[in-house]
């Protein structure tokens, strides 16, 4: 029996001529809290819908709990909890009716857990869903998702639109679920603080293409950043393998690099700056670097700086397109491996 609850192989989905998901090969280990990250429109929701058989893949396959996602049986769906992106629940139902309706669709139902989540969010069971705030509705949906005690919890941007209190409650609920090591949480999010707190694995989609797939710790370890200060104008940056982003402000240059950290440090030191120091990279900084077109485009800060101050001579956006790919870093399932 495989130890992965989700496996995709070159999963591809086109909408018209655009590839929403492009040859996604992904594995999610059992018992992990897996964060699925990416910008809006990067293909996260499409991937989740493909995994649950709600969309048909153009090509490639996806297996969830060992079963082809396009033919998930009721038994398999019984083992998967799914929280939709919009926290959908029928507006005309009361919370009590929501429970009655949802419990009829699953084989087991933990009423105590449902009650606990509802109490946690401070909701009255007689309230109609249409009268709830977005955070409260998220609580109802989370309760409905958790009560069947699913083996795999798929949450599509669960914290979207929630206030800090609701987010905290949601995180606690997720952590509550992962007490059981057999349970897996696969969630997409834009809130990187939350991701940093709970996720032990991350994947980053960029334009439908998988760019990162690793444990969270590994990700932090393989992304580095330096600030180099120069006396005069910032010199031209030499080609750097794994360059994620460059930000210039005054006579300082901040460089973020993935994978080839040692080589990058050597190259930066050769620029003979006044000072070079390695700065800690948080998960949010690293992820943003990936989402920010990986050096192809200047950051907003750089753009503002370029408008307000004279642009440093000799600086040009690094041409990362011609860089040699790092050997040995191929995604799983690649056919040309």
């Amino acid at each position: 029996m495989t130890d992965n609850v989700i496996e995709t192989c070159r999963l591809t989905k086109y909408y018209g001529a655009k590839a929403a998901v492009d040859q996604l090969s992904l594995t999610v280990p059992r018992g992990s809290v897996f964060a699925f990250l990416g910008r809006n429109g990067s293909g996260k929701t499409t991937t989740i819908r493909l995994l649950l058989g709600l969309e048909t893949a153009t090509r490639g396959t996806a297996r969830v709990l060992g079963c082809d996602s396009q033919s998930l049986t009721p038994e398999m769906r019984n083992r998967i909890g799914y929280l939709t992106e919009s926290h959908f629940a029928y507006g005309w139902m009361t919370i009590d009716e929501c429970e009655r309706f949802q419990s009829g669709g699953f084989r087991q139902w933990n009423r105590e857990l449902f009650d606990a989540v509802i109490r946690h969010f401070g909701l009255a069971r007689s309230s109609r869903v249409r009268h709830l705030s977005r955070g409260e509705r998220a609580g109802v949906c989370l309760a409905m998702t958790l009560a069947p005690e699913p083996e795999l919890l798929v949450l599509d941007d669960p914290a979207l639109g929630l206030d800090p209190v609701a987010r905290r409650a949601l995180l606690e609920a997720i952590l509550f679920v992962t007490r059981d090591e057999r349970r897996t949480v696969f969630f997409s999010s834009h809130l990187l603080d939350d991701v940093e707190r709970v996720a032990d694995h991350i994947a980053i989609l960029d334009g439908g293409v998988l760019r990162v797939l690793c444990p969270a710790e590994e990700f932090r370890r393989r992304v580095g950043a330096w600030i180099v200060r120069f006396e005069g104008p910032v010199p031209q940056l030499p080609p750097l393998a794994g360059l994620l982003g460059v930000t210039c402000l005054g006579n300082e240059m901040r460089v973020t690099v993935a994978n080839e950290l040692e080589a990058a440090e050597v190259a930066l030191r050769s620029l003979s700056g006044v000072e070079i120091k390695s700065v800690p990279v948080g998960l949010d900084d690293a992820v943003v670097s990936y989402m920010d077109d990986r050096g192809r485009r200047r950051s907003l800060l750089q753009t503002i700086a370029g408008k307000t101050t004279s642009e440093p001579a000799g600086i040009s956006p690094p041409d990362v397109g011609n860089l040699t790919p790092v050997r040995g870093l191929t995604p799983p399932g690649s056919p040309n491996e």
Partner: protein
Amino acid sequence: MRTLLWKEFRENWKWGVLLLVASAIGHAAMQSNERRIALFTTDYLMFAAFGFSLGALLLGVLQTVFEAQRDRWAYLRHRAITPERILLAKVIVGLSLYAVAVLIPLLLLTVWSSIPGKVPAPFHWSAPLNGLVMLLAGAPYWFAGALIGVRDVRWYGTRLLPVGGPIMGTAGMVIVVESVGLPTLAGGCAALIVFAATMTAMAVATAGAFRNRTGYLNQTRRSRWCLALSSAVSLGLLACAALMTIGGTLEDLRLPWMWPSRIVLHEIDRHGRLIRWERAVDPHDPYARALCDLTVVDQGEGIAPSVSVSDLVMSVSLSHGRSDGNPPRFLRRGFGQDGPYRRLGDLWANPRPHHWFFDPNERVLLGYEQRTRRLTWRAGPDGIVPADQPVAQRFSSGPSESVRSSRIVWSGFAEVQRQAGQSLERIKSALDWTQALQFEDGLYLLDHDRPRLSRVYAVEAPDRLIDLAITQRQEESAMWMVHDRVIRKFVLTEGDRVLAPIDPNGHARVTDDLVRGEFTIPNALQGIGQFGFAELPEKNLVVYRAYRDGAAFEQGALHTFVATPEGKILRHIVSNGGSSYHQRVSLFGAVLLPAIPATTLTAWWSPAERLSIPGVPIESVVSPPSREFVIVMWASSLLSLLVTALLVWHWRFSRTSSLGWLAATAVLGPAGLLTLLTLRERVLNVACSGCHKPRPRTSERCPHCGQYFAEPERNGTEIYATLAESKLSRSIAEPVTR
């Protein structure tokens, strides 16, 4: 399942209530005419056919179209229940709401109609049957609505196409009700078969759509076929509509390359000849061609008589259609719309104090008073008695339907008489034909106002009166009767002059004062479809078409008698063919018509064969299509087949699928190709990075060189760690390769 049913009901009861209100208003509007029971009428049948269907369709759409929103659908779909059970819950609730919304007003109207004093007409338990049949016919529309609502395809594309299946089902049910009739075992069985077939096809197609809303390929084969069938029917209907609209428009334009429609008529000319001739339908088109003279027995079909159009003085309606002699009920306005009881007199005429019906079980006439709306009179051959008294005698059979209709149109009769120098008074009758009732034992006059029933002409047994012909102009009328004694059939004219072809020993001859010869007419004369009579200075002309069976479609030959003014039969010509309308539908008809079934059906269903009579020269009723029409039809069908073959090859369909689509195109012609184009998801090809040939992007490997798709471009920033050692098997990807 219970929670699903509860949820569906809570969400949709409001639509059911709206439908109930609309249905109630519709039923009330149908019963607005207080002189009839609406449930028996064709108007109600049409209301039910369209209204119930529309209601079910809207209910199906409303139950699914909101549910099909992205996250709402995901929420409903992702549970430990099969999509079929989700659909089943919707079906149970939807059809229950539909049935309740339709049944309550229907039953209320039925009960109301059955209460004496509400409607001046006899009630029969079969009154709600038409509504019930249309209730069944409407059910498949719910599935069509669900398909429209749930399928995630373009509104202007194939989304609305599934409606075609139920439309054909409704058409089938209406045909069953109108032709076979209810309540009969055959009619019930036929209606149930049509219902079951339509329901099954639509239910299977809907189940497939619930399993996969977006894709066509990922549905089960049965679902695909059912959806394709329903869509093909819609496309066929659309093609017919386009054909009629575009063809008619172009024909109106009278473009030089169009073929004008032709009509074949029978007219009597000044010389007493019955001319079959062809002219253009367009009155501006001077085309006219005489085909033959039916008063000349030995004239072949190829010898066209010399005749001037200006000599034609009187038309004789001798159309082949059933509508002249025994029309289906929906064409018989005012007759046969009261269930098993026959209404006597025109419902649409001025209000009368009494409404009369013939009771086929009791074989008596029933008179309902308009004022009290209750049964007040009964009538038998011996007269009228109050309703509470028994009728001494009963009629041997029901009145003939022909009494109601003036089947013979003597459009040019007065002109002929004038040209013949004869007075109109000679054939003028004092009888009020609207009061005439024709029974087998004679002709009766029923005075609706007094009321009074009197027999004006009696036929002694074993003779029986089998037909009555009435001619009319606005102020004059005349009457001819045809009656029969098993072996005797004769035409009786006013003034006791009789033309009687009889058949004592399998032969027919003229008898009574007109015995002049013998003629062989093998087919038994049981009724007369069309009838014409012309008195000319030199001769009289009698033309009629015999029915083999008075109630069936089968028609006998066309008989033409040429007699002297004294009644001596000079000629008796038996021929075939009648007035017909040749709709030339231009090339558009040929383009859309499937060649193989059209050719096969034409060869198999030969009107000439149906109307063949030994020893009688045959003329085909349906003229064969022109050579150009055949060429265009075959070219269009073959081109469709070729394009279909190229597409299935290009899209790399499986062998079974390819054969299926080729067979569909062979049978349906261009409609099959259109179905393929509209239903199949378009597979975009991309250039292969290996061989640079186009390859479908749905295939893992290039069908030409076997190359996988190139990996997305990388720049060294990718991090794939630890999880790279996935145990993912290559075989996972293989099943999706088409």
